């Protein structure tokens, strides 16, 4: 076992995949020569050459469209969209082509691409460098959406995504790249090297897409979270002393409804947490499913804690970010309800 940051884990996943399968190619803006702005692809061009790891122009629509064509003829492109906020020029290709080509061609052609993209705030990126667009992907039929919360999962899930026969949107919470950030922005984040989930096997392994993980066992209330919010929720549970069960979804589509339902049947209460804006966010979907499947077990309304319905502000970042205090308040509220 090695100790890895999430950046190293992601890199290792691509490395292992490229090693095993010649069809895997890695590209994106500043990805080849420079090694990626977050260094996720550092060394891959040196190791695999410029035909397998390369730079693209700043042309998101073209990049993704090209990847889809490559995939239709059997390649396995693993593309980096430098920040999730830059994916919009490619959104047309993602929704109309990537998500539909299997359906449209009656299974003749498929789209085994992975779009890796750093998401979320916490780095003073403001409105164009902090977004969490996962709900824009979950609303499209024909995409898988994965959001890891730690290095171990990141590697296993990314390899699984690359090997997956369908398009996977792989959202990497950038605030987690170097450590399990729990929303306490005024404290240094502990590095992954000091965290159990920073232990990552060097070789090949996969984590199945569609299986959630319970990060904290509890009996009072179920917290459904993913990405950065998993760590925020864990902090909120500790700080409020409320015996919360914290579920890390790991993938939003497919969704591990079983794990959620089992937990809520036990606790009778549910809080859904995400950093993306509230309205029409993925939390609404989870809340609807919970009331549909657990109605007779619920002892309180399902509560959502999310980013405010505003663009991500530059100043006031921590007023926007749903940190442990806000999640903690929600926990207290559902317990009192």
């Amino acid at each position, binding site marked *: 076992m090695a100790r890895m940051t999430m950046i190293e884990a992601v890199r290792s996943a691509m490395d292992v995949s490229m090693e095993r399968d010649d069809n895997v190619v890695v590209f994106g803006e500043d990805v080849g*020569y*420079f090694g990626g*702005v977050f260094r996720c692809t550092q060394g891959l061009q040196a190791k695999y050459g410029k035909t397998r790891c390369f*730079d693209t122009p*700043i042309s998101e629509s073209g990049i993704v469209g090209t990847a889809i064509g490559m995939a239709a003829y059997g390649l396995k492109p693993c593309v980096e969209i430098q920040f999730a*906020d830059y994916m919009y020029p490619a959104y047309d290709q993602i929704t109309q082509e990537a998500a539909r080509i299997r359906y449209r061609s009656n299974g003749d052609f498929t789209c085994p691409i992975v779009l890796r993209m750093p998401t979320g705030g916490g*780095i003073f990126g*403001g409105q*164009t460098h902090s977004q969490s667009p996962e709900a824009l992907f979950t609303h499209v039929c024909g995409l898988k959406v994965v959001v890891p919360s730690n290095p171990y999962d990141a590697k296993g899930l990314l390899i699984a995504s690359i090997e997956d026969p369908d398009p996977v949107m792989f959202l990497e919470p950038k605030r987690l790249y170097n450590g399990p950030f729990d929303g306490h922005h005024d404290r240094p984040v502990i590095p992954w090297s000091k965290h159990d989930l920073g232990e990552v096997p060097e070789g090949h392994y996969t984590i199945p897409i569609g299986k959630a993980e319970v990060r904290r066992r509890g009996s009072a209330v179920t917290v459904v979270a993913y990405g950065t919010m998993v760590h925020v929720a864990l902090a909120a549970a500790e700080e409020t002393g409320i015996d919360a069960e914290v579920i890390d979804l790991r993938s939003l589509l497919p969704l591990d409804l079983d794990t959620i339902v089992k937990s809520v049947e036990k606790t009778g209460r549910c809080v859904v947490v995400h950093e993306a804006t509230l309205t029409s966010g993925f939390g609404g979907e989870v809340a609807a499913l919970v009331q549909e499947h657990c109605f007779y077990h619920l002892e309180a309304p399902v509560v959502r804690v999310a980013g*405010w319905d505003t663009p991500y502000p530059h100043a006031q970042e921590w007023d926007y970010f749903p940190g442990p205090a806000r999640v903690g308040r929600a926990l207290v509220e559902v317990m009192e309800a």
Partner: protein
Amino acid sequence: MAPRKSASVSSRKSAAKPAKKDFNGGTFAEFSKEEDLNAYREMLLIRRFEEKAGQLYGMGFIGGFCHLYIGQEAVVVGMQAALKEGDQVITGYRDHGHMLACGMSARGVMAELTGRRGGLSKGKGGSMHMFSKEKHFYGGHGIVGAQVSLGTGLAFANRYRGNDNVSVAYFGDGAANQGQVYESFNMAQLWKLPVIYVIENNRYAMGTAVSRASAQTDFSQRGVSFNIPGFQVDGMDVRAVKAAADEAVAHCRAGKGPIILEMLTYRYRGHSMSDPAKYRSKDEVQKMRSEHDPIEQVKARLMEKGWASEDELKQIDKEVRDIVADSADFAQADPEPDASELYTDILL
């Protein structure tokens, strides 16, 4: 075709390029004393402002993204000198210089960088997102290439209103590869819109050199298939920029449609404050600084012609430093926006 007058950064042009007309045949008028002094002061303001922003960033007063314009000052200062009241300016995220050149207040820009309520976007926008209706500055856009279409729309609005204003849409060599740039080119020429596309070719898009990402590295030729005239300009020489801008503005005001100016320029600092710029050699940067610095060129001229003494130049420097210091003080003392601002200006 007359040779260029100044030592020019265009020496990097490859010999294999298709022949084309140099802007102004490569010649341009000398600046008057007043023009040189103005250009000196304005470029120096941008330089000192950016240096201060870099310091404040290092001290933790500015967070997030901060893209400095140091090295490229001649482009905006030369362009702005050719514009008149009502002409619009729009650019990407490397925008501090553009705003200062438009006459927006140093305090307002600096306080935006530090995220304070006196910032031009009340602290909510940050370095990449500022605007001024009064100065006809339409942003400040963090998404690469997006401003190019908007600038085209501004030109459409000018045409629609029947005024003779032009819009200037600035973007980088990297942005020039976004598809919407070409969609815009087509519409601008189709509808003969008065827009000047200024491509600031500083040789790098983040960590990627132009040649790694562009099939056609002569950006002045990017409008060829739309019949948009394009010219390469020594973007380190403010006189060359001004001369090119004058002709481009005249072209647009005369109703001849869009025009492309490729500014051959260079950024001295990393892409943003977090970029150590390891993808290029120190020598390369040093060579540009020592041989082509836009401010040093003007300074040398002013001294050589006896238009300003060392002391007078020092005085200008002092005045500029005072403006910058004042903006920095303001930007640190001004309070952050009130929490009630969180929900303002989303919808009416």
